[in-house]
């Protein structure tokens, strides 16, 4: 029954939905690939931001369009998820980032004079000088 409803969708609604789905899937994949491949933690934190904002946004808009066309009335439930995700994603990344900076600073203070260039010591020199003062 659902397949028949798909068959009856006009092209001008199925084409943008398909484009948004492909775009959202590609962007989500790129974000996760960045999470896997980038060398430092402070670079890795940028990967999921793409997945959460652009990838989720594209897929949510595609879902809204498809359900509005299937039920022949405007369906805006997905705006709830969009609003919630867009509000909470910066908070989450800020909290994780702050925890990482604190942990790195504490590790540095425990072993003073550690060599630069390893994973945990990335550009936190300004923060460290402010913390020492």
């Amino acid at each position: 029954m659902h397949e028949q409803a798909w068959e009856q969708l006009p092209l001008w609604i199925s084409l943008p939905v398909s484009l948004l789905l492909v775009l959202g899937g590609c962007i989500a994949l790129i974000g996760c690939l960045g999470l896997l491949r980038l060398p430092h933690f402070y670079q890795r934190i940028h990967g999921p931001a793409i997945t959460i904002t652009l990838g989720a946004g594209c897929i949510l808009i595609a879902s809204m369009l498809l359900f509005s066309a299937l039920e022949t009335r405007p369906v805006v439930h997905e705006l709830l998820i969009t609003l919630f995700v867009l509000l909470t994603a910066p908070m989450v990344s800020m909290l994780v980032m702050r925890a990482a900076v604190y942990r790195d600073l504490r590790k540095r203070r425990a072993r003073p004079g550690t060599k630069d260039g390893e994973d945990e010591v990335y550009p936190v020199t300004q923060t460290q000088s402010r913390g020492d003062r």
Partner: protein
Amino acid sequence: MTSLLPLALGFAMSCVGLGILFCTLRLLIGPSAQDRVLALDTLWMCCMLLCLLLGMRFGSMVYFEVALLIALLGFASTVALAKFLMRGEIIE
């Protein structure tokens, strides 16, 4: 042209599934604890996207509520884990 939408849905689902695989790899090999927390947060988000795609595939609104619940729980758990990362070692 009628098979365009199932093709796009399958492509998006395989992309998100591959993303889940990458997040799981980072969760397993992540050198530090904050890496694992970040990977877990991304894993929550990818699972939410997969739920939305499944809802579009089967045309039911139940999956939407599942996705909303996953988004809420993922936010709460990541905030709790980040708080633990900041405070857990101070007490020691």
